[in-house]
């Protein structure tokens, strides 16, 4: 049944594209609403009839994975959820995969957020991933959720020298001083690794500028694809590795499923989402070609008539 669905939708997409190609050879432009329809079909069809492709991690993703892999057990890792529901489809799979990886390696994980909207997404990761998959881990010892604080970069400015000034308690009002996980942690400078997940401001860039550089803490980032190129200048000196968009998430997932047996059968939303991606990219590339053909035909006919 899915195969029939796949075939029909592929037929619709490619047939339509061929038709538009023929039209464009006579120099005709395509209405933008037709493009919208194609994008809709290219994304919807693989969702209804799933197709997945294999991914292999690029070095920029593997660097981040290896860093978490090589940290000694019991290291303090801070994961900051600086994104909103709109970015969640891209960034949440990274958050889940990295949280799994850290906890499985026995690191102590501190969750926080600079975005008001990040707090509920953090709760999503805690309730959907950590509680069911790591029942042996104890809140306050192995991980802690210290929640959201308003103030954007201001928050970073403070925690870079003093954590408890900004976050006196965790999200449930328990003082941080009373927690085992915070022993020896006064500020961000005492952390072993920071993973900044986000895509807006404040986000990974601010973490690098306000915390990573001044306190000299290694930072790995996971970002929405749109801001990843902007972070390349910081790699590899100022950031350890970059997960860019859903492809980065998919690569991390495939690395995790291949290199840590425990996760061989885990859910891989990132990998699943690559199906619609591939088709949509194909459609956009086709439209670029169609647009150029139409453009050159028009230019030629324009110069002919002159």
């Amino acid at each position, binding site marked *: 049944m899915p195969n029939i669905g796949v075939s029909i939708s592929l037929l619709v997409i490619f047939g339509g594209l061929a038709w538009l190609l023929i039209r464009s050879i006579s120099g005709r432009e395509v209405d933008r609403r037709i493009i919208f329809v194609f994008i809709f079909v290219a994304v919807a069809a693989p969702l209804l009839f799933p197709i997945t492709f294999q991914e292999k991690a690029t070095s920029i993703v593997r660097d981040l994975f290896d860093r978490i892999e090589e940290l000694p057990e019991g290291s303090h890792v801070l994961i900051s959820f600086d994104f909103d529901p709109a970015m969640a489809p891209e960034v949440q799979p990274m958050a889940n995969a990295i949280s799994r990886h850290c906890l499985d390696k026995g690191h102590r994980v501190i969750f926080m957020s600079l975005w008001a909207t990040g707090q509920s997404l953090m709760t999503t990761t805690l309730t959907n991933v950590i509680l069911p998959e790591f029942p042996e881990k104890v809140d306050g010892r192995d991980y802690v959720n210290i929640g959201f604080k308003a103030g954007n970069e201001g928050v970073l400015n403070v925690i870079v020298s003093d954590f408890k000034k900004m976050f006196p308690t965790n999200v449930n009002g328990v003082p941080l001083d009373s927690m085992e996980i915070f022993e020896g942690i006064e500020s961000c400078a005492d952390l072993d690794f920071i993973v900044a997940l986000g895509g807006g401001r404040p986000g990974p860039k601010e973490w690098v500028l306000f915390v990573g550089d001044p306190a000299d803490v290694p930072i790995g980032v996971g970002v929405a694809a*749109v801001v990843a190129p902007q972070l390349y200048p910081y790699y590899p000196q100022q950031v350890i590795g970059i997960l860019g968009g859903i492809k980065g998430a998919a690569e991390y997932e495939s690395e995790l499923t291949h290199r840590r047996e425990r996760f061989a059968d885990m859910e891989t939303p990132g990998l699943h989402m690559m199906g619609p991606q591939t088709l949509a990219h194909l459609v956009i590339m086709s439209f670029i070609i169609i647009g150029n053909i139409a453009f050159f035909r028009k230019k030629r006919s324009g110069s002919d008539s002159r």
Partner: protein
Amino acid sequence: MNRSTYILTAIVVLLFIVSWTLKAVSLSGEVDDNITRGFLITISAFLTLAIFSFLYKDNPFYKFAEHLFVGVSAAFWMCQGFWSTLVGNLFPRLSEGLSNFFMVPYQYSPYNITYWIPVILGLLLLMRLSSKAGWLSRWPLAFIVGTTAGLNFIRYLRSDFVVQVSSTFVPLLGNESHPWTGIGDFFSHLSLSASGQFMMILANWIIFLGVICGLIYFFFSKEHKGVFGFASRIGIWVLMITFGASFGYTVMGRISLLVGRLTFLFRDWLEIIS
């Protein structure tokens, strides 16, 4: 509003009720508040579709969603500002009574008095409402402009100027992983392998020259002629490649967002995928 709009609205309302009912029925086994939940999921789906309808053209459903969005979200951020900035940060430094009222711990410090500065400036800002004393509202604005200029001067100097300059110190003849071992070796190992020495060296040359030419493009006070003009042409080409590459790279993220929304429609609302 013409007749067809009324008919369309009636149909949408009907579909809304049908969806609500079906959703409530399908949730009845799982949750207690299935009627509320059915309503909430249906309204989410309705709003999602209302926004998508804008792609075709402007219409009353989009207008409804837009106006609702504006009203609700403006209040959302105001409440956030009230609870997190005023209650969370100002009151604990201003007054013990207010702190106790809102049950936030009072933070005593001899400098607390300085927190009257933003309060006074904030009140001056409200002077804008008066036609006579309106000019007083320029003071807080001047304060803000000064703050922004002062803070960003050093911030950008450090992160955008100093650090980016020193990150551009790239070796042009090889690095630790590809050490330079003489011109003979270079030619005998010449290859176009992505991880080979040649591509690495080429990349560094492009970074070096690209940054220099890019900066030349931004020169304001020198005419872009001759060698300088040539370099600035190279600069704009490098910028164009940058823009093209960033654009292409971004597409993936944008598609993901649509995937997220369609997943909501197909899974949470229609329940046709799992």
